[in-house]
């Protein structure tokens, strides 16, 4: 019983980490209709920016983190301006392909600028675990989980309740209609990318606090993409809920199924779960059902 609760609760915390990365996918998609496959690489660049602010510039943490967030916001504006703005109006296929080019470009750039060696990431959150009864919770992930929930609640409010957010939703549904309603697609794409890259940096800090930073940090992207698809690419709360579901499924698989399959199933299980869910609800749990007309 304790084993079950323990694995479920660590699963939830891991799931919330997936959730915040998925959230950065969703924010970009929601406001600019770009499925950015290079989001993992954006997380990686965010992590290197944070490392640079803390270690290379030698800033104290309370200055380094805002500096890193500001730099990643600029990074988002640069990506939008030079890669995705010229592609406005192109089919979604071309945009996805551009994000594939971005994967190759960002990996190469990171390795040239910062080098391939791994390095210790500054410790932002306290190490160790909090004990609640017999259950241990990783402190960094716990604080990260709280941040994720706050971010999701804030973004949900922004997208559902504010004028600016609703304008972004109109852009996500259709560029042409949004333009004819007097909404600036350009401006909302900039907002999307600034939000997306800053969120990615926040998730990088949560993920790597006190751990090791290397190019492999980018792998979180393809682990979180299924989560974003499961929640529905348009849904902010869907990303978090799907993250928790996938995290729990992964934890349960690794506790109960991995001993039987020699440790293979916990990595595949989330994919199987997600494909099964998508077979029943192709638009994801909370995604918009788009009606297509000829």
């Amino acid at each position, binding site marked *: 019983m304790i084993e079950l609760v323990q694995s479920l609760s660590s699963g939830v915390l891991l799931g919330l980490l997936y959730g915040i990365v998925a959230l950065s996918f969703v924010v970009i998609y929601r406001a600019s209709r770009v499925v950015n496959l290079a989001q993992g690489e954006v997380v990686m660049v965010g992590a290197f920016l944070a490392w640079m602010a803390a270690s290379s510039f030698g800033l104290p943490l309370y200055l380094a983190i805002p500096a890193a967030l500001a730099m990643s916001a600029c990074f988002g504006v640069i990506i939008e301006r030079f890669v995705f703005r010229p*592609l406005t109006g192109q089919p979604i296929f071309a945009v996805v392909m551009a994000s594939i080019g971005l994967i190759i*470009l960002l*990996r190469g750039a*990171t390795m040239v600028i910062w080098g391939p060696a791994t390095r210790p990431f500054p410790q932002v959150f306290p190490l160790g675990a909090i004990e609640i009864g017999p259950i241990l919770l990783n402190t960094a992930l716990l604080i990260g989980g709280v941040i994720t929930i706050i971010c999701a609640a804030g973004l949900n409010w922004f997208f559902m309740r504010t004028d600016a957010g609703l304008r972004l939703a109109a852009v996500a549904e259709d560029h042409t209609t949004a333009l004819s309603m007097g909404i600036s697609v350009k401006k909302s794409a900039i907002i999307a990318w600034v939000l997306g890259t800053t969120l990615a940096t926040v998730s990088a800090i949560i993920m790597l606090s006190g751990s090791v930073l290397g190019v492999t940090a980018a792998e979180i992207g393809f682990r979180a993409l299924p989560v974003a*698809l499961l929640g529905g690419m348009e849904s902010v709360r869907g990303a978090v809920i799907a993250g928790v579901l996938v995290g729990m499924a992964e934890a349960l698989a690794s506790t109960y199924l991995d001993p039987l399959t020699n440790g293979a199933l916990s990595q595949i299980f989330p*994919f199987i779960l997600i*494909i099964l869910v998508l077979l029943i609800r*192709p638009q994801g749990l909370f995604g918009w059902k788009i009606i297509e007309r000829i």
Partner: protein
Amino acid sequence: MLPSGIIFKSYAAEEAFLVTRPQKLVFALFIVALFLFPMVGSTYLVGTVSVMMITMIAVLGLQITVGMAGQINLGQSAFVGVGAYVTAAMAVNYELPFWLAIPIGGLTAGLTSILFGLPAARIKGFYLALTTVAAQVMFPLAISRLPQSWFGGSNGMSMPSMELFGYEIWGQTGLYLVNLCFLIVFTTLAFNLQRSRVGRAFIAIRENDVVAPVMGINLVKYKILAFFIGAVFAGISGGLYAYYVTYVTAEQFTLWLSVIYLGMLLIGGMTSPLGAIFGVIIITFLQETTHEIGGYLSGRISFVDESVLFPATNILLGAVIIAVLIFEPHGMVRRWRIAKAAYRIWPNPHG
């Protein structure tokens, strides 16, 4: 645009790629030149071209799935891997000759892809790409967990050399000729597929997958078929690769390689098999050139070495892909057509 004075009297004639006698002659000479190339090229060059041809088969397959049928495939290198491993298992465990082992590898890769194409019954568009990522994640796990006697587990597999009629096919030249034969067969298949009934169905699905079923195209069947054919090409490429490198490990077939394959296809142009061929040539040329320049610079500038060169190539590659998408979304194939048309109407600028 065609040479002047050509009048078609049948549909078949209109669909032909080679119309005039000089065209046929030049094409035949080109094929002969390809076969004679190992006699003039250095061993290194012949090896490079061999790898290029193997890659071309995989990218031709990708062109069918992605370019022709419009289904994003992020797992092509996993299917290349399946082909390589199955070919290796056939050649090592059952001692089959290469001309049986490689096709079996290709077919197995195709059958594997059906498993991942099946969700196409319900899932549409970008969401379908997820299943191909799943294939890419599952592949190394499956290889290392399956019984060691099947695929060598995590150790990988060592390949025997190719044999034909009791003679061993030896050295870069021999492998080059085998690869060339396979490439010619599969390029022909890809070009012919495009103008067949199946190919037209693929193109209809790519253009609009809501309209295609209205026109009587079985969407699920053709989507799965697109994955199948693309993966068969990948499997064949994997089998040839296994014989070329003589040692197969799961680490050779990464998501990264799938991404590079897509990049090659993009630069070349997705709408024609010719794009796949151009893409592989251009990217290999870029990689080799940066390697050359880097080798030249590394002796002179202190911080330039292997650790900088490889990522620098990737910066160039990524930038080229994005630039092509922005400035020439149809890829180099369109530039090639424009150049051809300009040559044909020269010196009259308006034909």
